[in-house]
């Protein structure tokens, strides 16, 4: 293991070997996350498969057609397709849109997935294929037809990922306990004669029993390996796994080690269905196991650290959080918060851990978190404000008993653990599209004042938002039949008792619809420039503008420069930031009035995770002076190259919108290593900066330390081993730089660095 970053925690030879295997898989392209096409990134809906791009199988596209968004997958590619794809029950007995039909496929799929145990492991289990490679994940035409219509209006959506099941439910009951709950609920609904719920719970029995068999097969495999093993140390490891897996197949986890194994297993059997979630507050989940084992003398701190390191290596980037508050408001930081971060400190590289800061957090812990993110420079942990996330949940209407237990759940998301299915991650409204329509309408109607133009803009935003709502509601009519989240549901509050999947209407306690809004800064910059140049100074007309952007500003360079010269968002300038406040407020109000058929409203996020890279040519040039071939702004961060007043000004501009009323929006900061030259405590800058930012309402900071020159070289020479280890926080997640698609690399390099802070 190459120890490139100085850390107090040195990996043992065993952990170092596990690190090498995991890292080689990532760098070797075995953990890539693929999407079907650029449309998926921009509109969050590909028009092809209903989820991410299946790696193999009948829905898989050629490599030249799909896009690699980075190496943060749990799935380990072994280069071949799922061998039993043709024997799937849905193909042999017939496909049906139903939970039961899905569950039969799931059970068959898991039964025919190998139970693997590798040398050096204590924490085991991984997978090589996902269910969407073997079972068709598509919605019926009445849904997809709407999707294509919606795309024309500038929106789209896919329902999956970033919910947080409450794994404490599973840890307290074990698979067998969960099965008992399912069966008890089944009996209740049988007595009441509710066919829908009976069917669902019968399907759940298939799912849980398959998981228990899968667990037991690991025990059998480990026993078999132990029998053959001659190396005594390795034999002991196999025996440990056999004991742990047998316990998990027959009861609940009893030790810290078994609890960690349960979490890994849960992630595998859940994510094997095609996509993953956030998995909650790791320190809260494990603290009782930790304290008990430490008190009993059966666990040392170092052993606990190594087990968590194994968990990170096994999954390949984990969506866990640390810190935050307890229900009574006190600081929830505990021993596992430390051990969990130390385990990352030992390994470095990519991960998706988050630290939930609040003003009463143990200061030493936050100092350490900031030291880790700066020293490793890989954007880990993500720094988020617990209080703003909790208040965001409360603002939306969550009960305090749900809201207090909020967890950062990866990317820009957060989730009330076990009580929320807010369809996070993949719904998008491309705000540039309604703005461009507004220009067309206003030009036809010869509008000559900004306020009238603004009204037209609002109407066009409304039109796209209403179409998105219509589409999502159609999806929701089908979702629990097309692709229920049956494993997730097992660890959601009330769901099993209700006999409902969390994707079903009435399944989750809270079921808002999250929407990423793409292109906010470009729209803000455009509207401000239009206001100034066209309506106030009257230097040009809307017809001139329409023509200029249609021709990608060709022949209109002076006009373009004048539009570029206007104040730009992200510099704490009052004029343009007033438009930002107005644009954001309009988004908020537009979605606050929209209801999904589950009875909850839509919640906008001011961040869209990576459509900005590919959206340029799809959307064409924009009135802010952006050329068609340029990317659009990254989330709510200023457009590339337009933040001229430094990092504090950018932060101030973002803070003018109250984040707790939205659902996330992260500030990206990329600093060059030379910024830290000669500083004694390297983490001090981001610690103070983030505290000031979050005290004033900021919700999240994604922080990179990157050597720009090195990255530029890496784009040119991806094969050069010197660049193989570079990890960057792409957006909400981190990945190896050279593994990512070229377009992402180029966009990343183009982001402005605050060199002169």
């Amino acid at each position, binding site marked *: 293991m190459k120890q490139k970053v100085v850390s107090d925690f040195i990996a043992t030879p065993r952990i170092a070997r596990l690190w090498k295997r995991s890292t080689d898989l990532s760098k070797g392209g075995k953990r890539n996350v693929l999407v079907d096409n650029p449309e998926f990134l921009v509109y969050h809906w590909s028009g092809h498969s209903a989820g991410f791009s299946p790696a193999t199988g009948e829905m898989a596209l050629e490599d030249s057609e799909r896009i690699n968004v980075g190496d943060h997958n749990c799935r380990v590619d072994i280069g071949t397709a799922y061998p039993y794809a043709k024997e799937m029950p849905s193909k042999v007995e017939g496909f049906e849109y139903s939970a039961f039909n899905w569950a039969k496929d799931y059970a068959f799929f898991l039964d025919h997935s190998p139970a693997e145990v590798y040398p050096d492991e204590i924490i085991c289990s991984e997978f090589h294929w996902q269910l969407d490679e073997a079972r068709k994940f598509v919605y019926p035409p009445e849904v997809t037809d709407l999707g294509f219509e919606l795309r024309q209006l500038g929106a789209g959506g896919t329902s999956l990922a970033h919910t947080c099941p409450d794994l404490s439910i599973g840890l307290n009951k074990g698979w067998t306990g969960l099965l008992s709950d399912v069966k008890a609920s089944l009996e209740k609904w049988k007595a009441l004669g509710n066919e829908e719920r009976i069917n669902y719970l019968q399907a759940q029995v298939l799912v849980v029993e398959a998981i228990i068999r899968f667990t037991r097969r690991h025990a059998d495999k480990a026993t078999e390996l132990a029998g053959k093993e001659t190396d005594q140390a390795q034999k002991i490891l196999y025996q440990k796994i056999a004991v742990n897996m047998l316990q998990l197949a027959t009861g609940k986890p009893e030790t810290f080690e078994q609890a960690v194994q349960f979490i890994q297993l849960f992630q595998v059997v859940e994510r094997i269905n095609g996509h993953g979630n956030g998995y909650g507050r790791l320190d809260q989940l494990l603290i009782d196991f930790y304290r008990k084992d430490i008190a009993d003398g059966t666990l040392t701190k170092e052993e606990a650290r190594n087990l968590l390191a194994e968990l990170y290596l096994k999954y390949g980037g984990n969506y866990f959080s640390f810190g935050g508050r307890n229900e009574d408001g006190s600081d929830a930081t505990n021993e596992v918060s430390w051990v969990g971060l130390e385990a990352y400190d030992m390994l470095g590289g990519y991960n998706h851990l988050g630290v939930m800061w609040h003003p009463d957090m143990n200061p030493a812990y936050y100092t350490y978190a900031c030291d880790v993110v700066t020293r490793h420079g890989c954007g880990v942990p993500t720094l988020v404000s617990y209080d703003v996330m909790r208040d965001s949940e409360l603002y939306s209407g969550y009960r305090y008993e749900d809201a207090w237990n909020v967890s950062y759940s990866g990317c820009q998301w957060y989730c009330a653990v076990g009580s929320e299915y807010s369809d996070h991650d993949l719904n998008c409204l491309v705000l540039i599209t309604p703005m461009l329509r507004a220009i067309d309408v206003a030009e036809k109607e010869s509008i000559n004042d900004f306020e009238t133009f603004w009204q037209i803009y609002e109407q066009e935003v409304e039109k796209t938002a209403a179409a998105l709502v219509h589409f999502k509601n159609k999806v929701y009519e089908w979702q629990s039949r097309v692709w229920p989240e049956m494993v997730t549901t097992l660890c959601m509050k009330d769901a099993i008792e209700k006999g409902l999947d969390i994707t079903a209407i009435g399944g989750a306690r809270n079921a808002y619809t999250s929407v990423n809004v793409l292109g906010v800064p470009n729209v803000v910059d455009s509207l401000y420039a239009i206001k100034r140049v066209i309506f106030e100074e009257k230097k040009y007309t809307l017809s001139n503008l329409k023509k200029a952007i249609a021709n990608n500003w060709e022949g209109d360079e002076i006009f373009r*420069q004048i539009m*570029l*010269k206007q104040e730009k968002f992200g510099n704490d300038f009052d004029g343009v930031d007033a438009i930002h406040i107005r644009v954001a407020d309009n988004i908020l109000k537009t979605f606050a009035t929209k209801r999904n058929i589950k009875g909850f409203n839509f919640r906008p996020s001011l961040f869209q995770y990576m459509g900005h890279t590919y959206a340029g040519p799809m959307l064409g040039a924009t009135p802010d002076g952006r050329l068609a071939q340029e990317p659009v702004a990254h989330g709510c961060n200023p457009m590339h190259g337009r933040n001229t007043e430094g*990092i*504090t*000004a950018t932060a101030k501009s973002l803070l003018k919108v109250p984040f707790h009323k939205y659902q996330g929006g992260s500030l990206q900061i990329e600093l060059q290593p030379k910024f830290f030259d000669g500083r004694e405590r390297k983490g001090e800058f981001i610690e*103070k900066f983030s505290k*000031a930012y979050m005290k004033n309402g900021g919700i999240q900071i994604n922080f990179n330390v990157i050597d720009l020159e090195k990255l530029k070289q890496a784009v040119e020479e991806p094969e050069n081993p010197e660049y193989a280890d570079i990890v960057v926080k792409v957006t909400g997640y981190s990945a190896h730089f050279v593994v990512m698609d070229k377009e992402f690399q180029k966009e990343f390099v183009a982001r402005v660095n605050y060199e002169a*802070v």
Partner: protein
Amino acid sequence: MSKTGLVFDIHRGTTHDGPGMRTTIFMKGCPLHCEWCHNPESLSREPETQWISRKCIGCNICVESCVSHALTFDETGATINTTTCEHCRQCVKNCPTGAQTLIGKYWTAEELVKEACKDSLFFGEFEGGVTVSGGEPLLQYEFVHEFLQLLKQKGENTALDTSGFSSPKALEVVYPYVDIFLYDIKFIDRELHQKHTGVDNNQILKNFQWLVQKSKNDTNKRIRIRTPLIPGATAMVENIQQIGEFLRNNLADEIECWELCAFNNVSRDKYARMRLDWLYSSTPLMSEKEIDTLRKTAQIYLPQKVLSTGLSAKF
């Protein structure tokens, strides 16, 4: 009526102009003409037009809009005839790209306070504040006095970055409103000072002695000495010894630290933009070894208080 002050730049989020994170206000106009000056645009006491080649698209609008025909444009770019220019700034106003830009803007103290405090939410966490730099800020001491006074009324921490070349009165007037003095001492030798900066250092050293005496009874005043390390000029062991000797003899206890700021050549572009030759345009960065020698020399006089900053060549 409030006076106005001429400012040529404002930097937010700086971490090198005094403690913590600060907003630095650069006042325009300087009585010194240091050969190595890193801010040549700070020298003149008047606003001036500058042409930035990388922003220019060659549209010729500046030439067309010049009322006094003082502007010409050829393959070397736009040139202003400073004798015929009537300073109407039409070129700046009409330039679509910002290539023709005006260096220097007049502010009222109230407006400038508002601007300087935009980052106040960061000042607290970083224990930072506002630094007034230049040019030589004391050249506009009446305005600076009013500005600092308003900042202190708001409870902000203030720093003054000065060459010390001012009338005793100027320093005396602003003194009550400055928390931290960043005081430049470049040479002790009068002739060298005259040669390299264009002015005598007699007043600078006198002002310094006054300042140190005054702050002796004022426990909350902080004084930091800054010496730029300029190859062939200040970066001499003998010079550092002389400054060290001077500081040691002048209430060294009152001095918080002595910062040796290594030369950098990032001002090359600025000189090129102003069509000025720069004596230091091809001077390389100092080596770490050279800097280390000077730092060690300085430490003999002010142990524990010397720090070196700035860029160095890694060889």
